């Protein structure tokens, strides 16, 4: 099997991978636990049961970071949502979600047979979610004699990278006495997100999306009021597909040691994203889709200029990813030129300038034949 050198020899713009990039300290610890069953050196128990004494410090550190009273580790965010839904809801219950929600929110709700009411985004060009629409949705449903059992807010969506003010949605949730879940997969870990300060009831997080953790691990953080209602996925009699496995837990443990450093640079990450948007738009025929200014590193561009170039190429839309790879840039979906979705997270300004100049070159070549 070949070694993976995408991060060492290429600039990786893939928005899905940006927040999962590990640092040296994490890789060193995980490397030392790379043997099968390595996590069970001082323990013999059921394969999927996480020994609590081994993870007590991790629970403490993460609860402090997230402002939660208890955290349940799962395989990923989808499983964290399934865990919550199956713990507090039943088949046919109604939930309100935002129109920018990740498909896994819908998949998790569908798995449990929940009814979904989706709040629309503002449409082109911002596609924003207005927190006030949660109240409008509750009132509309009330007229139909329905009351949602849970509100779900995607703090930052994976499509436009729009950030929604969770505090405003929390006020509405409290006013109508409906619990609120924050999907913080793309935010917590990049920056500090504190459930206690926000005042919501639940938060789901992703180690591999935003904490720089190798492998898959998600978490469901809850406030004290809900602790006893959540079915602990590490218990022997619970489904096999929910709990996190040990190596991912080791990775999360290790990554928390550098989380302070990581979150300290968040303001600069956001500034860098806006700087890059400005540069790319200056090329012409490239325009930001989503809120402006950016409050996050996930960026979606409309790129009609690239689509026009693609029509002249033998490879059509595939020319772009091919041309970029030749000069050491990866992470764009092959074949796509109408829009490109990228992340600037963790990349240096020098690297982003290199990306910008590469796009300038591609557009100029088409325009002037140089």
């Amino acid at each position, binding site marked *: 099997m070949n070694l993976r050198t995408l*991060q*060492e*020899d*290429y*600039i990786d713009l893939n928005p899905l991978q940006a927040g999962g*990039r590990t*640092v*040296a*300290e994490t*890789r*060193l610890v995980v*490397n*030392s636990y790379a043997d099968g069953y390595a996590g069970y*050196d*001082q323990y013999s128990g059921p394969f999927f049961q996480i020994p609590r004494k*081994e993870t007590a410090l991790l629970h403490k550190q993460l609860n402090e970071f997230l402002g939660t009273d208890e955290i349940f580790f799962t395989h990923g965010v989808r499983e964290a949502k399934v865990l919550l839904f199956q713990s507090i809801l039943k088949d046919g219950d109604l939930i309100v979600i935002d129109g920018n929600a990740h498909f896994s929110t819908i998949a998790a709700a569908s798995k449990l047979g929940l009814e979904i009411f989706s709040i629309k985004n503002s449409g082109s060009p911002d596609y924003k979610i207005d927190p006030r629409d949660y109240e409008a949705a509750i009132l509309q449903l009330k007229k139909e004699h329905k009351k949602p059992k849970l509100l779900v807010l995607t703090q930052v969506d994976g499509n436009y990278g729009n950030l929604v003010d969770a505090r405003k949605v929390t006020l509405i949730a409290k006013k109508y006495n409906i619990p609120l879940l924050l999907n913080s997969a793309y935010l917590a870990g990049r920056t500090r997100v504190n459930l206690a300060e926000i005042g919501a009831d639940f938060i789901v997080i992703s180690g591999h999306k935003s904490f720089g953790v190798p492998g898959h691990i998600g978490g469901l953080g809850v406030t004290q009021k809900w602790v006893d209602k959540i079915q602990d996925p590490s218990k022997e009699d619970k489904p096999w597909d929910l709990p996190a496995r040990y190596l991912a837990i080791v990775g999360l*443990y290790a990554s928390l040691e550098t989380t302070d450093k990581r979150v300290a640079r968040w303001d600069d990450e956001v500034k860098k994203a806006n700087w890059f948007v400005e540069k790319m738009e200056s090329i012409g025929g490239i325009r930001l889709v989503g809120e402006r200014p950016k409050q996050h590193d996930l960026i979606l561009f409309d790129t009609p200029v690239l689509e026009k170039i693609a029509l002249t190429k033998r490879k059509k839309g595939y020319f772009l990813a091919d041309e970029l790879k030749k*000069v*050491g*840039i990866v992470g764009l979906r092959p074949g796509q030129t109408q829009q490109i979705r990228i992340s600037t997270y963790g990349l*240096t300004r*020098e*690297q982003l300038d*290199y990306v910008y100049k590469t796009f300038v070159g591609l557009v100029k070549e088409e325009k002037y034949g140089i």
Partner: protein
Amino acid sequence: MAKNMITNETQTLFSMIGILEKVRDLFRLTAPTHVLDSEQKAELMEYLDNLKAKIQVLERITK
């Protein structure tokens, strides 16, 4: 997690892996050209010097 015994040689070995991972981070920050600025060059030199010193520790095992 509970601490295990660690020999000087193993400590040195993991320390070297840790340094190499730091070098790997430098590669990541300078991809795809790996052209380093003066600060990064000094950082890399320090890593390489540390590695050389640690190699000497491991070489003792061969004597």
